[in-house]
């Protein structure tokens, strides 16, 4: 135990002991529309006591824990409450988890993004649990007239050993709720954790497998209308006119109109990136009727002089790649002179297409806007930013705007940009009715905040002994051109230059799972593989030499480097050991390796495959991960596995291309996503056990696997893969429609 000052704000402890009764608990949670069994009902407490904004203890010892952050499949809805429950020292089986609504008075950073929920929530979640435990101990000390320091807790029970007294948390909850918040609390040390570090199943699992209404698209309300949009068919086009009357005459259609989602002067957040300010809205009684009306709508759109095609993006990126930017993002040593003196130079260019997010649940949102208040409910990764935008477009104070998050059918960054929720609100306001806005798959895929298209050129210089002398990287991307100049191998090579350009485009882009890393990690690892080969060195040994350099004699100020070489080398060594790397690939298989650090976690992967025609069949991916303390190994492994499948799938099959501003793919018949038979047969994950504060896992396993895959494919085919997707979008006959 460590005594620490209570940092949680007083506002987080607004007590609400009047909030009583199991019925209220259920009423609070719209998901509770599912029926409860008599056993479940009888297990509910008669009264709940709120010890702080994160948790309530029932008179029978049950605990309701709020999961503050949006759940997009990264499983924070299980992991975040686990952290609270552990510091509370309760029994996990007594915990009920609820999704918290947006509440900036209590919670901080209610955002799903950057793999940061666990890392940034760690302290406040532990504080919430520890403070509540302390209040329960203080209540027991008063009741029993014993020193509080002599009271211990375990699995939801308070004990005073000397007097033989003990009580469940439920018995002390009422008294605890009336106490002052302690100024100092004891926090556990990692070896005292009882829930953190243990396998806990997804708290929503039973609801998911039985089809309970969990998602935004499942929201139904009395009097609710369905809304759909028709957006400009090409990026760059703007609304001109539409034959609304014809559509309004169709069965079930209540209205069709020109929707201005962002009125002039409306304040936009970064989360409004990709917003199309004007489009057509169609409102009707049912989804199918709206879909029919969408198809029937005749609209005119105004085209700008240039409508971008993929050929244009390709050429413009190539042109930019051949130009030196005004100044590098980082330069160490004398790069040009080093290349002149190099014995061997390797130079390669890599490219990758736009990608759509393709969450399985298309964009949607429920909104009920009245002059008095606005109620919004749906899938959103950035509720706080949405609230700011809504306050502006609706001209309504934030206090009158309620936002609740549903479980999300995937996020991957797409739902950071909540323009669909703004559209829903504006449609509801116009209709003066509750509406659920639903995007069709085609809407979703053709109006995205896509992963940008990239090109990158690497150049490495080696001396006669195969030592890396110089490294030059230049990156270009559509609306993005980051190069991560302080990531590896910065600091490990004397002569180093990293630079980038950005190509502004009409096609809207945004964060897509592991932004920019999802390209750079793969190609950097593919290039390192080629450079190691040119140096005549084993690819792991070659990397470890560089990490040794960064550890022992770093170039420049090591604080400038955005990685810890010891931990980076650590995962690589672990992967080497566990994969029996030095013994070579298993018989008949080809093997590739990659390692990367992003989103504060370190990952190394060894991938074994065989080729079936021109397609890889991945037999196994072995993954070594350093994310510090692992909250829930069961779901942590799931995240790692998902990232690997996602990375392999997109590098191998997926691409979004454009013709005159129109996406050429708008559904899964033309946009290829990885399928069951194309996933690795096995994924094995090993975590580094080091007790360091935890970091996130939603993204880090995705980026490097694209490099491990390319390197293994090279071993199998003798061909290097410079362009993603490696195989492409041709659908196979094996897919059953």
């Amino acid at each position, binding site marked *: 135990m460590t005594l620490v000052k209570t940092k949680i704000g007083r506002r987080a402890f607004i007590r609400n002991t009047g909030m009583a009764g199991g019925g209220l608990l259920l009423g609070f949670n719209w998901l509770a529309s599912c029926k409860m069994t008599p056993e479940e009902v009888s297990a509910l407490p008669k009264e709940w006591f709120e010890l702080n904004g994160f948790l309530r203890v029932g008179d029978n010892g049950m605990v309701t824990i709020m999961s503050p952050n949006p759940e997009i*499949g990264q499983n924070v809805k299980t992991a975040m409450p686990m952290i609270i429950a552990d510091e509370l020292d309760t029994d996990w089986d007594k915990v009920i988890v609820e999704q918290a609504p947006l509440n900036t008075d209590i919670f901080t950073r209610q955002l799903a993004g950057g793999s940061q929920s666990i890392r940034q929530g760690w302290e406040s979640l532990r504080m919430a649990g520890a403070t509540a435990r302390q209040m329960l101990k203080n209540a027991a000390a008063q009741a029993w007239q014993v020193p509080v320091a002599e009271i211990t807790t375990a699995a939801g029970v308070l004990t005073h050993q000397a007097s033989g007294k003990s009580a469940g948390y439920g018995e002390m909850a009422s008294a605890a709720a009336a106490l002052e918040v302690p100024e100092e609390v004891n926090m556990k040390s990692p070896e005292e954790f009882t829930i953190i570090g243990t396998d806990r*199943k*997804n708290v*929503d*699992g*039973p609801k*998911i*497998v*039985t*089809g*309970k*209404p969990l*998602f935004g*698209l*499942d929201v*139904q309300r009395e009097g609710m209308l*369905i809304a759909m949009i028709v957006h400009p068919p090409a990026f760059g086009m703007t609304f001109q006119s539409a034959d609304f009357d014809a559509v309004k005459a169709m*069965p079930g259609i209540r209205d069709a109109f020109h929707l201005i989602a962002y009125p002039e002067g409306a304040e936009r957040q970064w989360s409004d990136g990709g917003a199309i300010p004007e489009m057509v809205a169609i409102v009707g009684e*049912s*989804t*199918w*009727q709206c*879909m*029919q009306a969408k198809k029937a709508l005749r609209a005119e759109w105004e085209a700008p002089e240039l409508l971008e095609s993929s050929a244009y993006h390709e050429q413009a990126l190539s042109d930019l790649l051949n130009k030196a930017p005004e100044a590098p993002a980082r330069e160490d040593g004398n790069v040009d002179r080093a290349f002149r003196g190099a014995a061997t130079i390797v130079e390669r260019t890599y490219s990758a297409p736009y990608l759509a997010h393709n*969450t*399985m*649940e298309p964009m949607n949102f429920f909104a009920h806007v009245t002059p008095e208040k606005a109620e919004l409910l749906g899938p959103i990764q950035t509720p706080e930013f949405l609230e700011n935008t809504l306050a502006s477009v609706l001209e309504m104070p934030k206090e009158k705007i309620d936002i609740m998050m549903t*479980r999300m*059918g*995937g*996020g*991957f960054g797409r739902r950071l940009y909540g323009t669909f929720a703004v559209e829903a609100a504006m449609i509801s306001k116009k209709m003066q009715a509750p509406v659920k806005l639903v995007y*069709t*798959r085609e809407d979703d895929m053709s109006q995205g905040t896509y992963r940008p298209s990239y090109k990158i050129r690497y150049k490495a210089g080696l001396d006669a002994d195969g030592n890396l002398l110089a490294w030059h990287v230049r990156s270009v991307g559509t609306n993005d051109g980051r190069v991560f100049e302080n990531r590896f191998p910065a600091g490990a090579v004397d002569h180093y230059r990293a630079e980038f350009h950005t190509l502004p485009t009409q096609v809207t882009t945004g964060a897509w799972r592991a932004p920019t890393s999802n390209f750079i990690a793969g190609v950097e690892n593919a290039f390192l593989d080629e450079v190691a080969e040119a140096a005549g060195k084993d690819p792991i040994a070659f990397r470890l030499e560089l990490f040794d350099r960064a550890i022992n004699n770093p170039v420049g100020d090591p604080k400038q480097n955005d990685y810890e070489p010891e931990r980076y080398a650590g995962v690589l060594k672990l992967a080497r050991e566990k994969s029996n790397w030095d013994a070579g690939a298993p018989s008949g298989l080809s093997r590739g390796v990659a390692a990367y650090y992003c989103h504060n976690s370190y990952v190394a992967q060894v991938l074994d495959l065989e080729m079936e025609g021109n397609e890889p069949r991945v037999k196994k991916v072995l993954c070594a991960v350093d994310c510090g303390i692992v909250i829930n190994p069961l*779901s942590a492994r*799931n*995240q790692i*596995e*998902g*990232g*690997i*499948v996602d990375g392999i*799938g997109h590098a191998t099959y997926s691409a979004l291309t454009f013709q005159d501003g129109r996406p050429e793919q708008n*559904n*899964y*018949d033309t946009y290829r*996503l*990885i*399928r*069951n*038979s194309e*996933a*690795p*047969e*096995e*994924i094995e994950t090993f975590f580094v056990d080091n007790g360091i504060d935890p970091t996130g896992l939603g993204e880090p396993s995705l980026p490097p696997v694209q490099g491990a895959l390319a390197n293994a494919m090279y071993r199998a085919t003798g061909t290097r893969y410079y362009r993603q997707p490696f195989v492409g979008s041709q659908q196979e006959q*094996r*897919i*059953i*429609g």
Partner: protein
Amino acid sequence: MATFTLNINGTTREVDVDPTTPLLWVLRDHLSLVGTKYGCGIAQCGACTVHLNGNAVRSCSLPVSSVGNQEVTTIEGISEHGDHPVQQAWLEEDVPQCGYCQAGQIMTATALLKQNPSPTDAEIEMAMNGNICRCGTYVRIKKAVKRAADSGSMA
């Protein structure tokens, strides 16, 4: 608009809808059975999978007028208490991430195992290839199907 009498999860339900309405939207919009999901609308992703007389079909592309008196089973109807061996296997393997596609995955898997209680790996992949999981839970899906098959209760 026309009236259709449907046999859904063992219960007779009546709806008055446009005959071209896909079964998916009848289930979701008109019968509040929202466990069956919309993913693509063109029978490519499998999120909308239901059983028609025990066979897995894509409800997004099945007009309600073609259902007739065939037995429709949805995710809400495969077990009373969520204890179907396939549902149990899904929980045991802790398959879901976002969870959105999983109802469709489970419906495809249950239909497969009913017809083929001991499928080979290739047969599992072949059957499950019509169901996209964007979170990439395929490795666990395969394990869960095998677990359900091995439980022997599917025969």
